[in-house]
């Protein structure tokens, strides 16, 4: 405890139950805890209300309950430059970006971490469901105990330097237990609903939101054989494997987005959840990060996720000279989507990941 008392931990607090319990647990463990709320996006509405103000009020209530100082910092500019710009660029390029991965890399574990270090912090802590283990000066990123909530997918782009300074106190706790702890401690956020969706869009209509920033170009929906089935509202609004919102009637199996033809601005649709065009057998990944800091030189096998909350899939990773990766799948995989991340695992350990750049369609079965 004596050491903990001399260890200053800055907790990134969102006003949600996870970060509230994170701060509470660290305080119980005797650390010197400081709560900081990050304002990354201005969503002030016409009436002058903004969800960030409400969330910060919850942070204040919880910090007063726990008995720790709290502050607010503003990273709107950094978020816009590093995360939102990337988000729009990816959509413009017809891909499906993952702003949460970028937010962790550039904001929570960079701008925020730097801020915490300038306050004399020894560590920053967040409410992520992930674990770190430190051995011989090396940090490993491990999956959260709660398999259902594991968030290492979103943390795949972090470096050794970043992880050295990180604590994830919820990593070895199951989510239902986190709620229980919040209730036992009577924290003001114990019953607060978990936030869903992309933070800056919130509960709003995604299409409407995106249309404020990017011009949409309508075009045809066609089958693989070129038969026109309808009109799409802009390729960026659709993602591979999507069923909702196509509005194609008729008999037979439901219709799905199976591909995008950016050159012709055509959305390719096909019938059936298992439409062959949706399946791929390999991908190319770029902007690769290895958490160990050491890029493998030889091909190796491991497991991978192609999106958040997916089962692991066995893959073979073949490093290329330019730092990119060829990743081939043991079994054809459905709806692997450019712009998302491929994240590699060896058992409990998250090895790193990269952005899915291209996919290789599976040979017809």
């Amino acid at each position: 405890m004596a050491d903990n008392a001399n260890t200053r931990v800055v907790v990134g607090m969102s006003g949600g139950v996870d970060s509230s319990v994170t701060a509470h647990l660290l305080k119980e463990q005797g650390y010197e805890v400081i709560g900081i709320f990050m304002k990354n996006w201005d969503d002030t509405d016409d009436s002058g209300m903004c969800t960030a103000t409400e969330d910060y009020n919850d942070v204040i209530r919880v910090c007063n309950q726990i008995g720790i100082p709290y502050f607010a910092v503003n990273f709107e500019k950094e978020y816009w430059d590093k995360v939102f710009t990337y988000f729009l660029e990816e959509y413009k390029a017809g891909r499906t970006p993952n702003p949460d991965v970028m937010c962790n890399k550039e904001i929570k574990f960079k701008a925020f971490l730097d801020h915490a270090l300038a306050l004399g912090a020894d560590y920053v802590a967040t409410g992520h469901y992930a674990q770190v283990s430190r051995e011989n000066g090396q940090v490993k990123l491990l999956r959260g105990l709660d398999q259902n909530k594991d968030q290492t997918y979103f943390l795949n782009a972090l470096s050794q330097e970043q992880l050295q300074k990180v604590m994830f106190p919820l990593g070895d706790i199951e989510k239902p237990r986190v709620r229980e702890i919040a209730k036992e401690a009577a924290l003001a956020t114990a019953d607060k609903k978990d936030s869903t969706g992309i933070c800056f869009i919130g509960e709003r209509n995604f299409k409407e939101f995106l249309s404020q920033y990017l011009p949409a170009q309508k075009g045809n929906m066609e089958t693989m054989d070129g038969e026109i089935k309808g009109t799409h509202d802009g390729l960026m609004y659709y993602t591979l494997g999507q069923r909702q919102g196509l509005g194609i009637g008729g008999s037979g199996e439901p219709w799905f987005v199976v591909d995008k033809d950016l050159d012709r601005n055509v959305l390719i649709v096909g019938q059936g959840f298992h439409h062959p065009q949706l399946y791929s057998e390999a991908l190319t990944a770029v902007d690769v990060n290895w958490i160990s800091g050491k890029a493998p030189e030889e091909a190796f096998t491991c497991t991978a996720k192609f999106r958040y909350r997916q089962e692991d899939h066995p893959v073979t990773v073949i490093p290329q000279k330019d730092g990119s990766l060829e990743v081939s799948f043991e079994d054809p995989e459905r709806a692997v989507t450019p712009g998302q991340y491929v994240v590699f695992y060896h058992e409990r350990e998250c090895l790193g990941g990269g952005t899915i750049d291209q996919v290789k369609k599976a040979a017809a079965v």
Partner: protein
Amino acid sequence: MERIYLDHAATSPVHPHAAEAMIPYLTDFFGNPSSIHHFGRQARAGLDEAREKIAAFIGASYNEIVFTGGGTEADNLAIIGYARANRQKGNHIITASTEHHGVLNACKLLETEGFEVTYLPVDEYGRISLKGLEAELKDNTILVSIMTANNETGILQPIKEIGALLKSHSAVFHTDAVQALGKHLINVEEMHIDMLAASAHKFNGPNGVGFLYVKQGIELSPILFGGEQERKRRAGTENTAGVIGMYRALEISLEHREARNEDYLSFRNLLLEKLFEADVKYVINGDAPYMLPNVLNLSFPGANVEQLLMNLDLEGIAVSSGSACTAGSVEPSHVLLSMHGENERSKSAVRFSFGYGNTSGQVEKTAQVLNKVLKRMKI
């Protein structure tokens, strides 16, 4: 950890004697001053005594003081109340770009009601130009509102000169004296001030009580609607205990004004001297002869001011940046923007404000900590 409070311009501790004076009015003399029984009369007597004394402190008369719920309400009542009641005389108002939001936002409201507002610029020392004011005065100018001292910088405006200038004009002169009262000597008659807003918690009185001085003969429309208290100018049961606390606090402040101002000046010089010795780079926002002795606004070029304030707080030192209520916002203060434009200096400013209870030891400690923290931040 010893905590050092250098944020007296935000709010200040209630002086023990003021707190003591309030207690009987919370427990024994709790009556409603408007009631026509013994309990009401007791409270009314206290209220009247306070009103008489406060009037005398600023060179006004008993019937020229309207008690309010604080400085913002007093500013609102002066500006909105006067403009609405005197619309037939004209629709032009002059104020300054560095005023408190209690004045600026009242003016913004009046703009939506058809009034025209001129916001005078300030020079790099935060002062308006008398010539500039004179040039903006028109036949239809009904009100000039210029603060006595700025809340963020302590910068004093030429109130006496403005009063003299307006003697020969039909516009009335309101001054927001919230920061100045108790430190800066004010006599409304000699300075030709028509309305003056004050707030108790800035001079060691309680929060939530203030007053507006309104020169006899000036018509005001109320902005709160209800009973006929305060000569129909401010509805709502009077905060008797608060008013008593305000009166005692002001009395004590004025009694010790000169000695305390000397202390504050020595604190200011000590802080600057120690920072200079430690080779800390700073710039003073303001011009020393035209500043309240207890407020010192310094810019630390290159410093992230949010980080600096948090660091100081974690080391036990309470100061402010810009005006309060801007947590988590990167907006530089409108006051510094008016003085220096959008630059490093406007974004890296910290306000130190001394007050009752501060010692030179605390000021020296502050300089030490500031130096340490800035070094850690690599400034």
